[in-house]
């Protein structure tokens, strides 16, 4: 038990945690949320390379600041390293990835296979998404699959976990143990339908949801009010999506080019009025976190800092959402460190021992 952190398997960081009653997964994120702690998740910018170090380096900057890392599945329909691949690397190093599954690229046969594969590698959290249309990405000529939609995908994963069966009814020898997630966008029309849609997702199997970027806190507050009235906050953990805007120009560009992200004029004005727009963007993100964390029913934040990942730690720190808690951090265990220190001279000191010397020292 030397130097063991909370939510870590003593037999090895890459192993699943002990099952707890009432938990459907053996992951860290579910434990944090079920303990009632304010969770912080973030997104890993997937590399366009085959080098595992790229993934490790990008994950390292979140060390000790986040509870789980989203491994995106070709977000924006752009080609990157697959979410399954990223998850394989991250679970090896003990991180808690959230494997995103988009319905755009794979049919139900491939998806169910990936769910099993992911779970076997130790992925405890899966986020079921519909996915952006192919027209948004770098290969607009690709065939959009959309065999399942996010709802039937959630249901498929739930059936695999709870009934131990494929969608076809064929039995699984070992069902995957998963914490199922979904995405919500309270900021896009039809606004009155959005809370009910969350209800549908919960009925289909969602246990936690991450929202689209929230820049309009009053709008989010109204949504949360409706969701609370419908009793959904007791059935599902809601994580609010936040992120820093690099500048007023970026904000305007996102507003007119990225469907589904709603940025009110007041935000753009505030950025325009600032001396250092980047710093103001970060401050704005912190202010939004401070506002949304007070809304009843919000269980955490999902910090999306695309190409500004280095700010995630600062944002989390300055907003104080962790209240002094330190999420799991990859570090050398103290007993390993002890051994490493003792053996250090063998590795680094220039000693060439001959067998004769060894016999002499032994006597």
């Amino acid at each position, binding site marked *: 038990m030397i130097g063991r952190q909370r939510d870590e398997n003593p037999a090895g960081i890459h192993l699943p945690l002990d099952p707890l009653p009432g938990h459907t997964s053996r992951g860290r994120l579910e434990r944090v949320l079920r303990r009632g702690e304010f969770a912080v998740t973030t997104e890993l910018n997937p590399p366009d390379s085959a080098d595992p170090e790229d993934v490790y380096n990008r994950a390292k900057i979140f060390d000790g600041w986040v509870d789980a890392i989203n491994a995106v599945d070709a977000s924006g329909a752009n080609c990157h390293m697959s979410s399954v691949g990223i998850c394989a690397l991250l679970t090896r190093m003990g991180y808690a990835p959230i494997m995103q599954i988009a319905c755009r690229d794979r049919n139900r046969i491939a998806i169910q296979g990936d769910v099993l594969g992911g779970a076997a590698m130790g992925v405890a959290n899966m986020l079921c998404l519909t996915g952006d249309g192919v*027209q948004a990405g770098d290969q607009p000529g690709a065939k959009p699959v959309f065999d399942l939609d996010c709802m039937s995908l959630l249901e498929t994963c739930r059936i695999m976990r709870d009934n131990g069966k494929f969608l076809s009814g064929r039995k699984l020898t070992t069902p995957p143990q998963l914490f199922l997630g979904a995405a919500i966008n309270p900021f896009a*029309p*039809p606004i009155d339908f959005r809370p009910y849609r969350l209800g549908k997702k919960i009925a289909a199997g969602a246990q936690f949801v991450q929202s689209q970027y929230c820049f309009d806190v009053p709008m989010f507050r109204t949504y949360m009010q409706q969701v609370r009235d419908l009793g959904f906050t007791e059935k599902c953990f809601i994580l609010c999506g936040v992120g820093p805007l690099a500048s007023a120009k970026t904000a305007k560009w996102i507003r007119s080019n990225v469907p589904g992200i709603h940025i009110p004029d007041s935000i753009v004005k505030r950025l325009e009025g600032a001396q250092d727009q980047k710093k103001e963007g970060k401050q704005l993100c912190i202010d939004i976190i401070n506002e949304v964390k007070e809304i009843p029913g919000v269980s955490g934040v999902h910090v999306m800092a695309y190409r500004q990942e280095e700010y995630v730690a600062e944002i989390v720190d300055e907003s104080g959402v962790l209240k002094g808690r330190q999420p799991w951090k990859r570090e050398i265990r103290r007993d390993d460190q002890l051994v490493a220190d003792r053996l250090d001279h063998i590795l680094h000191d220039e000693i060439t021992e001959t067998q004769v010397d060894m016999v002499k020292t032994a006597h």
Partner: protein
Amino acid sequence: MSETTPAITQATLVKKAAPKSDYKPADVSPQRRVQRSFAVRLWSVRHSRLLEWFYAKFSDMFLLLHPLWKRIGYGRVEGPIKFVEKRVKGFMFDCRMCGQCILSSTGMSCPMNCPKQLRNGPCGGVRANGNCEVEPDMPCVWVKAWEGSRNMKHGDKILDVQKPVDQSLRETSAWLRVTAQAAAAREAARNAAQNTTNTGASA
């Protein structure tokens, strides 16, 4: 979004790099090129309550005709019925003949017209004006479905979670399938009732 503000997306770059030619299709997706006007589709959504009433009567009539269909053979009537169904629903709802019609659960707005073919509600990409993310000129199928469902008597069926589409039923008649299933259910109920009265009589 660091210093390099993505004023140019990867998609734009790809589009720019595409070979130049005089002929450029006007619309984004092949679906949109087939379908140019949404007037009838939108009319159907506006009159969803009327259509719901009509559909209920219509399916009752089809069920009444079940003995006739059975005598001729469902296999034999499929051709002509499918021909009519495809044209009528194609005109009214821009039907895509998925063969498992859920119009009554989606406010009389056909979900197969959604470029992502979502059957359980709108994606997160709906534009602020209520139009589609993929096809900017088309009103989102699900925004319309929600509006349509609010007029309907059983509009709350929109809240049911729908099963994934069975692709093997494409280009088959949903009308006949629903009728045959309803007839089978009626038969089963009748048999069950008969069995209980029989056992009741014997006991």
